């Protein structure tokens, strides 16, 4: 089991370039508070990289446990991890401006990355795929759009009920 874990972890690390994985050590130092005097942006970026890699490893392991050859929620777990760690660092005053900048840059470059993603989609394949694929995709989108307000409502009713229950009489 240990071997399998190491193999997965190694795969996750090597599937990303070295510059991402090599920064993990610095993040470890940062979170233990040993290098707080140096305020440089790479700590922020390294923290981000550390969170993503951890999330992807956990997502891959969840996938293995449930028997799916895919990453189950790795990015979502990474987001939770980043929120938790950066929140803790900010609360204890160990998140300097340049360190924050190392994260915020990547957040601000998000839209251009999405534009690049759009520009590398197989749009021709989708457009020329025939009626079945277009109908299936389009109906799924329309129905799911219309479900957004429905589920928002259901959740709110539950929230209100639970609020009433906890309210003292």
């Amino acid at each position, binding site marked *: 089991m240990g071997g399998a874990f190491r193999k997965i972890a190694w795969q996750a690390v090597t599937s990303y370039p070295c510059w991402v994985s090599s920064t993990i050590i610095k993040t470890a130092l940062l979170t233990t508070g040993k290098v707080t005097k140096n305020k440089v942006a790479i700590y922020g970026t390294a923290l981000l990289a550390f969170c993503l890699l951890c999330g992807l490893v956990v997502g891959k392991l969840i996938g293995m446990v449930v028997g799916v050859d895919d990453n189950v*929620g790795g990015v979502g777990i990474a987001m939770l991890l980043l929120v938790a760690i950066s929140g803790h660092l900010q609360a204890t005053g160990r998140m300097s401006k340049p360190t924050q900048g190392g994260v*915020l840059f990547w957040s601000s470059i*998000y839209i251009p990355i999405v534009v690049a993603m759009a520009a*590398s*989609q197989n749009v021709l394949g989708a457009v020329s*795929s025939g009626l079945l694929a277009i109908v299936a995709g389009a109906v*799924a*989108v329309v129905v799911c759009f219309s479900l957004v307000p429905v589920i928002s409502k259901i959740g709110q009713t539950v929230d209100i009920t639970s609020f009433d229950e906890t309210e003292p009489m």
Partner: protein
Amino acid sequence: MSSIWQAIESILIKNSLVTAFAFIGLVVGVSYVISHRVTQGRMHGSAIAILLGLLLAYIGGIVTGGTKGLADIECLAGIGIMGGSMLRDFAIVATAFGVRLDEFLKTGLSGVVSLLAGIFVSFAIGAVVAFAFGYRDAVSMTTIGGGAATYIVGPVTGTALGASSEVIALSVAAGLVKAILVMTMTPLVATWIGLNNPRSALIFGGLMGTTSGVAGGLAATDERLVPYGAMTATFYTGVGCLLGPSVIFFAIRAIVE
């Protein structure tokens, strides 16, 4: 003249990621000018940039005959790296910076409900459409249903169930159509479906599920909603691959056979 272009092109190819940064910067810049001058700011610059990206991908597909849009053009191959899953996931995680943990956890239950609803509804719709088009065996119906979920769930389900390659190709195409429609339609329907707060964005991500569609659609609507939608959407494909070839296949088989 052509030798000068060859010299330039060799530099562009060698520094493909840098070329991509410059090129995408240009596309975004043009989009913001169009947004201000042509639509008087009524259409968001990033929405136009995504549309322009899709249009360029279409042109790239026609010119090269490949499947990676503009990234199939040799000197623009860096766009494939820039828009690939590695940097996309890196940037998505970064958007969560500054969000409070309880904002995620507060809507956790609605997120799970929307995730399951999104997966089951998409499979059901895909299966019904497949049935209407004459694919009436449970394997093909489930595979095309998976495509209506995402373009990864479709082929994973199809491969697990032993679907024909024609049906698997159809499921990928259905998923692509969905991703592109979510990218382009979300800003247009956002007000109608109440997509203006973290809670509805989280539900939206769970219902739509296509990470690229949700990432693009929310970016074009309101950048602040991105982390919430992306959070649930990243669980969708994994859960879809889990339920598709198992529970959902058994259910569809029980109904049609």
